[in-house]
């Protein structure tokens, strides 16, 4: 049977014209265009990484971008606040009874300590004056800039937060960051240091960052000098010889240092860092193995105080 090669069209629609394709393109030219665009975007990302990592050429643009985002982040924070407070209220309600009992015991102990400490403070002031002793700068010598936290760490591997203050507020890289409290001087435990500054927004490197190290001492024994560094999920007080002994429950504070040279400590003396949770000694180690619990919940910080050295102001 001869094959009939005549072609007839059966039209399914009103028009025999093929409509212009839309949706997911599948032609060869589209595939090439797709690859070119993606290749360019990847290349652009690599260029941005290189520029951002190797120079400060993009810092200004990034700072302006962060400043532009700041009002939106603040607005989002304000919108989320009622929900956050509700969750906090329920959480507080669950723990209220046990916390109340614990706090009553703590208050009784602290009242005893306060009486002893007041006498020691007066004696200290008198002796300092008589001996003309040059002490490291205290927190009171520093200026305070209060700032809101715009973004906490984005993942479990990050240890930095973004705050709503920058160079226009007098912040500089290396400034010390503490938590705000109801203390007379308003400052609480150590959070970290300012790591990067733009005009209106800054990044704070937390104590748990691998690059963080703070010279610290024991509140009850100033002979203990070591360095607080991150150690897994907690902090460790490193480089403390086996004598003198550090005890569990001791409070570790910043050591500060005297002097005006380049090696002067950025931290004023006496900022609380954490409490000792465990102390172990092994014959193989030259130093004690001391673990600390930070006094601040570094995973969720809402506001901070940045201590600006007198030279900044």
């Amino acid at each position: 049977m001869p094959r009939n090669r005549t072609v007839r069209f059966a039209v399914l629609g009103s028009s025999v014209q093929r409509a212009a394709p839309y949706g997911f393109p599948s032609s060869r030219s589209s595939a090439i265009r797709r690859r070119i665009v993606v290749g360019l975007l990847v290349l652009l990302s690599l260029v941005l990484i290189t520029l951002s990592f190797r120079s400060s050429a993009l810092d200004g643009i990034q700072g302006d971008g962060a400043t532009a985002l700041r009002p939106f982040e603040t607005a989002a924070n304000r919108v989320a606040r009622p929900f956050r407070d509700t969750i906090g209220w329920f959480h507080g309600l669950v723990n209220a009874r046990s916390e109340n009992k614990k706090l009553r015991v703590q208050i009784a102990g602290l009242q005893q300590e306060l009486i002893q400490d007041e006498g020691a403070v007066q004696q200290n002031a008198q002796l300092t004056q008589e001996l003309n002793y040059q002490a490291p700068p205290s927190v009171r010598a520093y200026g305070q800039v209060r700032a809101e936290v715009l973004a906490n760490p984005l993942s479990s591997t990050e240890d930095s937060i973004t705050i709503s203050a920058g160079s226009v507020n007098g912040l500089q890289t290396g400034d010390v960051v503490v938590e705000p409290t109801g203390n007379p001087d308003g400052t609480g435990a150590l959070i970290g240091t300012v790591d990067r500054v733009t005009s209106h927004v800054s990044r704070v490197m937390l104590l748990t960052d691998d690059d963080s190290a703070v010279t610290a001492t024991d509140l009850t024994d100033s002979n203990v000098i070591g360095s607080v560094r991150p150690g897994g999920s907690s902090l460790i007080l490193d480089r403390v010889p086996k004598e003198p002994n550090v005890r569990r429950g001791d409070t570790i504070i910043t050591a500060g240092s005297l002097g005006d040279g380049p090696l002067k400590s950025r931290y004023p003396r006496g900022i609380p860092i954490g409490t000792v949770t465990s102390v172990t000694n092994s014959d193989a180690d030259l130093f004690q193995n001391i673990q600390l619990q930070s006094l601040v919940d570094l995973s969720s910080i809402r506001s901070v105080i940045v201590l600006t050295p007198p030279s900044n102001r």
Partner: protein
Amino acid sequence: MDGLKAAVVLFIACLLQLSVLTEYHPFRTASIVLVALLSIALLRGSLFGAVAGFAVGLMLDTGTLGTLGVTSLLLTIAGFWIGRYGETTARDRFHAPFLSVAVVTMLYVFGQLTLEFVLGEAAPAGAAVRGVPGALLLNLLLTLPVYALARRLFPPQELGDRVREVRLLG
């Protein structure tokens, strides 16, 4: 119009990620930006996904004052790859968004870790690996509402190569 809608959705996701989700430690591993991006990429294709990924990555890096380009690179590749999956085998499959989010969440964590390691920054693999199950669970939980919203905003398009005429032989 799709571009504008995607920009608004991803901008809101970005703000939620930066200001709300990171407030609560248990939710920190969740990434609403990643879930929103993958949902849009699945519905709008590889090119759209790649461009959206690049833009939202740049915004996240700017908001956190991180190294510019790191998140952009990861999200560009994620958006492109899942967009391509949407264009090819994932059409109208119920499991497609869940599978995409699960796979990309894991690859994203390891990709981020690798980039940080290459750049000489702290790359704690232990912390990253410990965070993977939580991230997977939370992202999968987020997928259902976010994909439903994305599907409403970006209704699936008809296929460009759908046959509109037939030729009869014989």
